[in-house]
């Protein structure tokens, strides 16, 4: 070991470390960030395990980011008396999770499945490996999640994947590389609570530049359908395959007395237009309901589910999500009841 004044060196390093950390935290708070819980695999696994540990027979929410942002657990609980378990995952088709519940003989709750056309009918799964993670999660990963959730996440605003060092570096004004097709990165959109209740980040509502950045991100992705689905002939077999998965899972759940209801949450503006252009309702949603025999709630069929503020066209603003949930919950409850009465 080299002989050095290690005490003063450690002290100097600690002072610099704390100073820089305070500076970094202040920077992101000035940017509008507030502390929130991470939408991590560990957080999802914790909610999924509640189904086993609590023998939960209430409502389970599956879907993509629209169910995550638009359905507010506390509002739902205020109306129904029980908070649903939030298992929706951004950028991810819910079908694998519906199949997971179908394969769980002990599950007897109700299931609301969000349908975002570009994800559900393509089978895209950005977070698809979370099921394997949950199955294989070791004791150290569980304790790490608990430590993070208890000591770090509620206190630090910079603790968000969107503010990680490599992400910040990648967002600098780098020259474009000729011939490389890139999409603007999906930016931070939400703040999450301890039970994965998620609300739109306030910045999207008040900062027009930031909002425009997010809108540009969606439009660059939806400017044209993905190459493997860019004609009806190519797309339909993929759509049919996804619907077939849903049919099988719903049949298994129905045989066990588990009601399943599909939800097409609102999207507006150019985003809705692009969705209808590439995956029109008649070739997707209508077929899904027809083949599964499950009821569906499409926002276009319910006037009370329309007209909400959606700053970046895809998700509801935070306060609007409360109003939306209050309007949605009774419709969903009625659908579940009708299914049980059949």
């Amino acid at each position, binding site marked *: 070991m080299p002989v050095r*004044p290690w005490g003063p060196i450690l002290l100097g390093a600690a002072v610099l470390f704390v100073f820089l950390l305070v500076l970094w935290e202040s920077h992101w708070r000035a940017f509008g960030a507030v502390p929130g819980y991470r939408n991590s695999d560990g957080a999802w696994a914790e909610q999924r395990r509640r189904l086993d540990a609590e023998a939960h027979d209430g409502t389970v929410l599956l879907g993509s980011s629209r169910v995550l942002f638009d359905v507010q657990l506390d509002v739902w609980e205020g109306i129904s008396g029980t908070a649903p378990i939030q298992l929706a995952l951004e950028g991810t088709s819910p079908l694998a999770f519906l199949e997971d519940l179908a394969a769980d003989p002990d599950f007897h709750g109700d299931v609301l499945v969000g349908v975002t056309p570009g994800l559900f009918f393509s089978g895209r799964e950005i977070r698809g490996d979370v099921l394997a993670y949950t199955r294989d999660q070791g004791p150290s990963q569980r304790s*790490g999640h608990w430590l993070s959730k208890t000591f770090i996440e509620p206190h630090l605003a910079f603790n968000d994947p969107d503010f990680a060092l490599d992400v910040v570096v990648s967002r600098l004004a780098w020259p474009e590389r000729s011939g490389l097709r890139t999409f603007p990165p999906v930016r931070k959109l939400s703040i999450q609570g301890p039970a994965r209740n998620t609300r739109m980040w306030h910045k999207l509502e008040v900062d027009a530049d930031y909002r425009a950045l997010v809108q540009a991100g969606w439009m660059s992705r939806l400017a044209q359908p993905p190459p493997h689905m860019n004609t009806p002939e190519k797309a339909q077999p993929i759509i049919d395959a996804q619907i077939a998965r849903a049919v099988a899972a719903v049949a298994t759940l129905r045989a066990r007395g588990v009601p399943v209801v599909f939800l097409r949450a609102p999207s507006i503006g150019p985003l809705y237009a692009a969705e209808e252009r590439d995956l029109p309702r008649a070739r997707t949603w209508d077929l899904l309901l027809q083949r599964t025999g499950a009821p569906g709630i499409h926002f276009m069929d319910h006037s009370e589910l329309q007209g909400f503020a959606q700053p970046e066209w895809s998700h509801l603003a935070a306060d609007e999500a409360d109003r939306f949930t209050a309007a949605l919950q009774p419709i969903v409850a009625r659908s579940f009841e009708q299914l049980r009465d059949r």
Partner: protein
Amino acid sequence: MVFNSLTFIAFFLIVLALHSLPLSWRFKKFNLLFASYLFYAAWNPPFVILLWISTIVDWYAVQMLVKSEKPAARRAWMVLSVIVNLGMLAYFKYGGFLLENFAVLMDGAGIAYTPPDWNIVLPVGISFYTFATLSYTLDVYLRRAQPARSFLDYALFVTFFPHLVAGPIMRPTELVPQFAQARSTSGDQIRFGLALMTLGLFQKIVLADGFLAQPAETVFDAAAMPGALDAWIGTLAFSGQIFCDFAGYSTTAIGAAMCLGFAMPDNFRFPYAAVGFSDFWRRWHITLSSWLRDYLYIPLGGNRLGVARTYFALMTTMLLGGLWHGANWTFVVWGGLHGIYLAVERALRDRYRGYRPGPLALFLLGLLTYTLINITWVFFRAPSFSRAAEMLTGMFGGNNAAMPLLPMVDLVMVSLIVAAIVSTHWLMRDRTLESAVARIPGWCLAIAWGLMAFAIVIAQGAGSAFIYFQF
């Protein structure tokens, strides 16, 4: 648990606090043993049983070996230990690989054979602790080491958590004596140990995971053909990633052991400044290369039995060394390439025995060595031979029509980081980290330490496993 996790930070603080209490040395050793089993069980608790089997079998095999008077009996106990250890390794690590290859052989012979599903989870670090325990039996059998006097010391040698899952691969003579005598740790030792841990975690979390892993993955795992620039940057990214990942682990492990008052050997000595491949293997994964030299190359004859036997021993050692890294033929080819490099180097050294390169020639030979090592990394990282072939074709200009894969940020960051790594290795080529630290002003060390710690926190690592855990 992995070093780059909150669980490890909490675990290590508790272990360090208990180890610092004014308690008996025996209690402290029990504390370390219990902590090490906890460290291992945090992945998958049942696999602790394998550790116990390995520990107990080797302990009793060596006890019996020492008591045996007849050479045949000594040999039998040694063979038992080798069979149990290599048997566990073969079952868990190579079972699926052997079955797949057996099926291919049968198919070649016209016999239809479908191997059973081999869904066996590979116990973390089994290759490392198997080699550590084997060295104990073999050293005692070869009368290079005395058997441990205490089962506690021996069990702690096998299990000691800093080296348990990814080395450095310790020899009993290096660690057992350190457990035999009570040791105290000075405040400066703890502080230097923490500085080493910070350096190791910076390499892993910031450089390997933060900036190098993604470009390597983008190129190696893409379906598209890579052009020359992307293929080279992807390969250079992996060369930096695997160094920062593994050297980062070793540095963290050495730092953790130092905080507890124990010394562990260097595992890396600035390998990308190597001139020639024998030099590379004296600098890269030093504890593995010395293990392979002592327990494989030399027993196979080494360089004592003529030229042909030397080359045979060299190739066999490197091929098996490649297979040790993973149950895949791509690893065997990686080892084989290193074997060929070493053989060619040996032949050239014999041919040009009096040659002493000047500074420019030394640098160019170093550059050639690094370039050829990058070729081997292609086989190490590529998921298949076909992808390795596509990568090599790209690297040598055969995919001129390929579309770009990496954005500008990756091209720039990989180039900067890899250039910094290679430059640092050249600057430090004939020095040690300790000698450099002794010469740097204290305020510089404080700034570097503070910046590295800050970068680790804001990188927000996801606690990904170290690459060598899978081996």
